[in-house]
């Protein structure tokens, strides 16, 4: 994922494994796997390659 999009994606601890741990500590259930999942690697064309590589970010 491109850095600018990645920063948006994980902003405020969302959509990352950080959120999983934060949810557990705070007794919440905000983490959504399908929303967090990034499919493929965005190349400089702007389109993804390696579509079978799925990523969940580690956090901000």
């Amino acid at each position: 994922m491109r850095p600018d999009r990645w920063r948006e994606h994980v902003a405020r601890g969302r959509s990352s494994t950080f959120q999983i741990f934060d949810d557990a500590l705070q007794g919440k259930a905000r983490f959504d796997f399908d929303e967090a999942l990034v499919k493929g690697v965005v190349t400089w064309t702007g389109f993804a390659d390696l579509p079978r590589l799925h990523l969940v970010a580690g956090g901000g």
Partner: protein
Amino acid sequence: MNYSDLATRLSQLGERLSKQADKLEGENLGRSAAKLASQLVRFEEQLESHLASRKSGELLLESLLRSPASKRHLTIGLLKRGVREICAKRLKSENLPAAKREFIELIRATRQQDLAVEFLKEAFADAAHVESGGKDKALLQREFVHLGQSLDEDFAVEIAARTIAELRRIATVNGIRFTDKTNRQRLTTLIRRYAQRAALNVAAARVPSRN
């Protein structure tokens, strides 16, 4: 944007265009539409070609021939063997780029892309496989640590009992470089120094187990 987003965008654009088609006018808009149409034709051709070659196995074959594994392990000999085994034909090219092209053509002509992919995958996997070094290596490594732990006098006795060939073997297995000109004394010094270091380092950072 990803391919899904692109599909959605094209779909939405298609719907809008369809509703407005009878009312659109103007040279600028026409020129823009012409450019888009021409790009769409090119993209459609590439997409069709991609899907067709994926279905036939050719895409995978070409990816494999361009892969890092191919760069390291692909040889003319391997391609010749492949053509012989898969198509019962003879590869004629004697340089690698030409041999690759000929390989692809022969495979394509006989529609054996799937077999060719399996052949190459197995060949690359075999080439990447490295033997572990076996029991001899493990024994020589233990001996190295033992030599490192020995007192000077014991070390001298142990070394004296070994031939230069044995010392070279101990040194080689344990990562010590030397040349044909390295004499016995120098080799002994190197073994002593690095064996002592290894014995110390392997023991030094151990956290005592909490039994």
